[in-house]
């Protein structure tokens, strides 16, 4: 059970290929991190996988079914997307924002019913926001908003949840809280979670699997400890890194700076 890209290519302009034959699979029950430099095509890849951008060539399948054969509604019941922080114009409550996740399950003329309210409540409890449900979304902190959008993805009842940089703009505690709960949810609900990130260390700490995107293709793919190496990071970011291992075996990478070289 996985969402899978096979030979996916995409370009916004001719002669400027953003994705050039990407092969990638994100399995249910796992948190997969996509790492890559700014402009390496992470967000483009996510947009293709969500079905918002059609790939130029190659194919995307969800549990074996080609994505292009699914209607927008069916697709939205299988795959959810959590955008980077956005500020809505209107002051919807947290409850109302999360409830919007039920849209693909409701007939066009219907309004949410009891079952939708139950699932919305469950999603809010899963991310620990139940007590804040009547607060205006616009008045929440960036970290809390991220959790609200994750809850909306959960209320959507999807099998795969794709997220654009869920760890951006968050303090270390909120990053820890968000990424830990993502792992818990993925493992407990058999949900496949695919996130883009600029933090190799978060991938090392919280991912079940890491892929590194560079030059339009995947240059490394596997368990985080194996996929994230100084040489791969050098390829991806164009600068040197060193690997540190803590007393209990956890790994982290640090950029090599002038001072560290001289020591």
């Amino acid at each position, binding site marked *: 059970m996985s969402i899978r890209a096979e030979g996916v290519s995409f370009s916004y302009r001719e002669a400027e290929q953003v994705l050039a034959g990407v092969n990638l699979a994100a399995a249910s029950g796992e948190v997969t991190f996509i790492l890559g430099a700014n402009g390496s095509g992470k967000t483009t890849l996510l947009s293709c996988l969500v079905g*918002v951008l059609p790939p130029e060539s190659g194919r995307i399948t969800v549990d074996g079914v080609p994505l292009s054969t699914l209607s927008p509604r069916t*697709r*939205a019941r299988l795959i*959810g997307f959590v*955008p980077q922080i956005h500020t809505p*114009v209107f002051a*919807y409550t947290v409850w109302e924002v999360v409830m919007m996740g039920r849209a693909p399950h409701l007939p066009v003329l219907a309004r949410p019913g009891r079952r939708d309210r139950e699932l919305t409540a469950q999603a809010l409890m899963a991310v620990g926001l139940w007590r804040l449900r*009547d607060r205006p979304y616009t008045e929440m902190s960036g970290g809390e908003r991220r959790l609200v959008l994750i809850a909306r993805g959960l209320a959507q009842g999807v099998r795969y949840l794709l997220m654009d940089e869920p760890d951006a703009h968050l303090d270390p505690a909120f990053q820890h809280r968000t990424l830990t709960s993502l792992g818990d949810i993925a493992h407990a609900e058999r949900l496949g979670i695919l996130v883009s990130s600029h933090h190799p260390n978060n991938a090392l700490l919280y991912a079940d699997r890491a892929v590194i995107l560079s030059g339009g293709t995947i240059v490394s793919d596997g368990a985080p400890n194996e996929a994230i190496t100084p040489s791969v990071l050098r390829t991806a970011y164009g600068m040197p890194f060193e690997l540190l291992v803590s007393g209990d075996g956890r790994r982290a990478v640090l950029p090599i700076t002038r001072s560290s070289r001289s020591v």
Partner: protein
Amino acid sequence: MSKGNGAVWGGLLFLLGALALASLFIGRFRIGFFSGISSLFSGADPILRAVILRVRLPRILAAGCIGANLGVSGAVFQGIFRNPLVDSRILGVSSGAAFGAALALLLSHGPVGVEISAFGFSLLAMGVVIFVGERFGASILVLVVTGVLTSAFFNALLGLIKYVADPLDQLPAITYWLLGGLSGVRFGGLWPLFVITGLGLPFFLLIRWRLNLLTLDAAEGAALGVAVKRFRLAAIGVGTLLVAASVSVSGIIGWVGLIVPHAARALVGPDHARLIPASLLLGAMTLLALDDISRTAISAEIPLGILAGLIGVPAFLFLFMRVLRARGGWR
């Protein structure tokens, strides 16, 4: 959360009903409550009966429909454009109607011709926006730019008509129409308004929860399974029809479509499941009240467009300051 705001809805419905009933007895021609009621059933006073049934009743129904249409379409347009300062004028519909009416007046058509021409040209304005939106992706930028251009073009045409119109009779008629009003309204010319209102308002009431999704970023809406472009254009189409049918009867009435959704949001919150019915009821009440004032305040009728600005703008400022004080921001 959908709270049981029974008191709010009951209050709004009661106020609207009371206002509509009272409006039957408000006007330069004095009608006592009991003599009015009894004349309806006995037929003893045919003049009284005629004033109530043929003059006041169509006017009240028109005011109610037009106010509801402007309120609901204002709320819908503010959602689509994700901009609380927008109303139906953003798409050039009113400018199209204004040009159509002015053209018909220049060609010395009667009220029916004016209504048809205003309606036709506002649909033409809408057609331009929907045509461009359909071909180029219906992004907010595409829609706003096309709407502003359409509006500017029809305003230029309107200027041309004013320039060539006879300054003794045609120009005042055009000016009077542009200021808006319901004084000449009779049942005969109202059927298009009633039919379009009867189809358009239920459409928005039925899809009202889903309108929330239109206020999201396009890619976000698409990821929630919404066919964003089709939904946007459909909502714009129906919203525009409501406005076109309204302004072709009443002339241009600004501010109602802008202010009513804000008042409704202050009352019931931004969730369209509640915002749409609240905008409907408040819009109908607002225009009924404005029309009552328009026909009683002084011995001549005050044009509705002027009243909407004179009363609507200070009312909006008051609401604005109250919300700023209570919430520390305007949302």
